[in-house]
């Protein structure tokens, strides 16, 4: 409590020189239930996370004892180093860092393509008189509900015919196409709050479609761009199936490398290495969330005009 609020509180309690005892707030049953529920939700995530973290620092001998909740008797970073630099994905034994750089190479074109495509489409649908805009939006909306697995093989044939199958561009294009319905709806809903007078004035000042977009719309899109960036970074980074299917022989992202490390049917398992590899793969989206989480909430609640 700062000095001002402390003064206000004491002033409220001393009215006319008399001191009135403050009523103690009673915790209601409903509040307790909510607290218990939230604590259970937190435990549901944090207990397995605790097991993952402590296991990553244990030796295999201690892991074999099966006491999953115990702290490491000997703390070792061996699992972390092996996961980062030595674990094999096929014959490439360079750890998950090998996939880390491929994932980065996939991330940037995916973000650029998906956000560029969806923001322009959303802008056109919201602020310009586009013929068949309603049916187009409806079709786009319906596309969001088509399971990816149904169109996977035709998309493989399509990217192969474009000559990009097995490259990071195939993965980036597929991410952009699959994200387009949701992102377009987000941008369109954001831009429809822009008053038409602004656009009309810009047109009268001889503003073209692209110039208005670049000089008026984009500068006021900071909030929604943060929201979309966080959504896309998480989705692209955590993706497994698109990377596995379209990465071909040379563009497998970090999640595929992680799966190669962790998933085994008949092979031996190094639990400490697996746990460390899983944590290393999860760190980048977590950093983005922690770093930009505040802006995400702001972006979700703000409109194009209100800040």
């Amino acid at each position: 409590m700062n000095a001002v609020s402390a003064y206000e509180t004491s002033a409220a309690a001393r009215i006319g020189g008399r001191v009135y005892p403050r009523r103690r707030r009673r915790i209601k049953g409903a509040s307790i239930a909510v607290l218990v529920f939230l604590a259970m939700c937190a435990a549901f995530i944090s207990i397995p996370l605790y097991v993952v973290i402590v296991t990553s620092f244990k030796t295999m001998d201690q892991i074999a004892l099966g006491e999953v909740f115990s702290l490491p008797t000997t703390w070792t970073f061996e699992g972390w180093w092996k996961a980062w630099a030595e674990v094999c994905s096929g014959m490439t034994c360079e750890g998950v860092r090998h996939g880390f750089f491929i994932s980065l190479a996939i991330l940037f074109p995916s973000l650029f393509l998906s956000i560029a495509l969806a923001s322009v489409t959303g802008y056109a649908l919201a602020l310009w008189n586009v013929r068949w805009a309603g049916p187009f939006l409806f079709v786009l909306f319906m596309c969001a509900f088509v399971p990816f697995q149904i169109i996977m093989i035709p998309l493989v044939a399509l990217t192969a015919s474009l000559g990009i199958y097995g490259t990071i561009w195939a993965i980036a294009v597929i991410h952009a196409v699959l994200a387009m319905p949701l992102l377009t709806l987000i941008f369109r809903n954001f831009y429809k709050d822009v008053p038409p007078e602004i656009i009309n004035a810009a047109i009268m000042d001889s503003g073209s479609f692209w110039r208005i977009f670049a000089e008026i719309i984009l500068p006021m899109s900071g909030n929604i761009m943060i929201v979309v960036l966080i959504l896309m970074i998480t989705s692209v980074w955590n993706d497994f199936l698109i990377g596995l299917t379209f990465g071909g022989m040379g563009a497998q992202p970090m999640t595929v490398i992680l799966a190669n490390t962790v998933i085994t049917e008949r092979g031996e398992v190094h639990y400490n290495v697996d746990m460390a590899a899983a944590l290393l793969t999860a760190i980048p989206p977590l950093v983005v969330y922690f770093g930009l989480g505040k802006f995400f909430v702001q972006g979700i609640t703000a409109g194009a005009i209100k800040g």
Partner: protein
Amino acid sequence: MSRRLTSKRLLGAFGLALAIGAAPFASAAATELKLFHTWSNESEIGALNAIVKAFEAKGNKITEMAVPHEQAGSSPLVSLIVAGTPPNLFINSEPGLYRDLTKRGLGEPLDAYFDKIGATPNFPETVLKSIKVDGEIRKIPTGVHIDGMIYYNKKVAAEAGVDPTKWASLDDMFADMKKVQQAGFTFIGVGGNTFQAGYLFHALVAAVAGPDIYNRFYGETPDKTVFDEKGLRDAIDMFRKITSQADAGWVNRQWNETTSTVISGKTLMQIHGDWMKGQWKANKKVLGEDFGCINIPGTKALSVTVDAFGILGGQPDDVLKAELDFAGTVVDPKINAEFASIKGSSPVRLDVPTDKLDACNQLVLDSLKKPGFSVQNPFNISDTDWLNSVWNTMYTFQGDPDMTVDDVIGDFRSEYAAVFP
């Protein structure tokens, strides 16, 4: 006549020199093969490297694509084929895929080549059956695994005063149960998922009921009279007896974690595929000192998994030659023995040098030499829906103590009616 050396002529001469200089290298350029596989474990990659090293020493080259294990294996392979970039060598056991490749003109039988290099007569009968599709050899066998063996902790056995190598039957084995329990150990480590239940059951059908009932039960279209066989009922009964040894933590326990209970000395033994050896090695335990292996006591047959690479046909001569070179390298007796010793499998030939084989490999090879003693893993011979039904039924049986052998047989009959109407 004087000729001026213009820059154009200089460039032309340089280009010609480059072309002439490069020609011998071009003709001797390595043929590059694309290999698609599902291996990433230390032991698997160590073993694969042994093959690739020997293959590349012949002047060829391998580029690879590794994907996560079997569950995700088929889909990326199909994608590569659809995209028009099929790999030259691939891991896949589904006969349907090989038939599809043949229809696309991409099939390549290996019978003649394996005959030519003298490999065929040295493949055990089960290996030969497993690598054939519609009567033709279509796969290159890499290693053999036994689906049901016993790996036991030697210190626990010594402390409990039992010697598993003396067990001649499952009755002998269970006769020692009390001794082990009284010494404070769990008798048999049991895990909890359909994979372990399914593998334990088919290993027991082979061991207790024998090869005839096994093949009638797991055949492409099962013989429904097999449900009346006493041998099948005995196998189900033995399944109950073994799984009822489970300790408190068996639910959802993976096989590796079950192995850990044996490694850590809480449990005497585990009955599972011989790939358990990899987990013992990962924990730096030594065969003969820390652990030992035996077949299921008194077993009538062994169920055998054969790991193999498929091969792509319809290729130019140089590529096909390189593919056959690869096949020859894989089944080379010396290299195959080295592969087996690193991977923890057993060799696919009976004539391999024995210096690199351990006692468990030797036991497997001795078993495979016996005619009619081995049967194929159900994945090679069964209908997928039928196999899933069997796995689910046995996993339900494992978890439901009130379910009887009659209930299991009843479930098999109804599943059979649904799968083979």
